[in-house]
C-alpha cells in the first residue's frame, strides 16, 4: 500500500518532537503570536487580493531569493 511516506524528501523529526512543537505552535495562537499571524495574513490577502496575485508574488519572491542565496556578507 502506498502511503504518504513517499513524499518524504526532507529530514524528519520524531513524531513525539513533532507533536510537542505543534502543540506549542497551536498554543501560541491564543496569544500575541496568534494576533501577529492574523495581522500578517490580513495584510497579505489585502495586498494580493486574488489567488493569481498571490501565486505570482510568491514566484517573484522565490526568484529573488534564489538569485541572492549563498551570498555571504563579510562582517569585517
Amino acid at each position, binding site marked *: *500500500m*502506498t*502511503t*504518504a*511516506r*513517499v*513524499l*518524504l524528501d*526532507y*529530514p*524528519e*523529526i520524531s*513524531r513525539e518532537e*513533532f*507533536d510537542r*512543537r*505543534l502543540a506549542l*505552535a*497551536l498554543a*501560541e*495562537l491564543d496569544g500575541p503570536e*496568534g494576533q501577529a*499571524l*492574523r495581522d*500578517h*495574513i*490580513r495584510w*497579505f*490577502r489585502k495586498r*494580493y487580493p*486574488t*489567488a*493569481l496575485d*498571490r*501565486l*505570482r508574488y*510568491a*514566484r517573484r*519572491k*522565490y526568484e529573488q*531569493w*534564489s538569485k541572492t542565496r549563498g551570498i555571504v556578507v563579510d562582517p569585517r
Partner: protein
Amino acid sequence: MGSLTATCFYASPSKERRRVLESATSRGTPRLECLKTGHHTRERATMAEVKGPEHDDEDILRAIATSGARVLLIGRRALILLGLPVQTNDYDLWIHIDDIDKLNAAFALLDQIPNKTPEMARQTGRYVLENGERIDVLVARSASTKDGIRLDFDSAWQRRQVVEAAGIAVALPSIADLITTKKWSARAKDIGDIQLLETLRRGVD
C-alpha cells in the same frame, strides 16, 4: 495558451534523450512513446511549439483544470492560494490514481515531461512532471499520518473546496484535510504551515 517559440522542443538533442514522452493519438488518447525510436511528427511539433519551458501560474492552473483529471492542489501553493504568506518552488498535486494519463496529456502542452510511466507511478505512488517547472504528483489512493490518521483521496475529493484564480476553478482539500496532509511527513517546516492553516480555520477577519 502561450506564445509560440521558434525552436521545436523535440528537435533538441538534449530533449531527445528523454525517455518518456506523452503524445496524442488520432483518437485523442494519450500514449507514451520513446523519443529514441519515435519520429518527429506534425502532432508533436504542434504541441511543442505551443509554449517554451517557462510558465506562468495561470498556464499551470489552466492545464490542471482542463485536463479532466481529478486533481487536488496540495502543499504550499494551496496555502498561498488561500492567502497564507509562505514560499515554495514547486507544485504539489494529489490526483486520482486512474487519471495519470489525463494529467500528463494536459501538461504535455507545456512541455512538462513525466519522469515515470503511469504504471511505474502507480507502483511507487508518486512521480514528477519536470522541465521548466517541478510538479510533484502524488497518486496514492490514501495516505496516513504517523499517528495513523488515514486520508483517502475519494473522501478528500468529496470535501474539496474550490478557489478561483483568473477565472480558473482550482480544487483544494478542505482546510482540515490540508492540515492532515501537512502531518503526513511531519517535517519541522510543516508545523508553521499547520499553525497558519489553523489560524485561517479559526478566522482572520
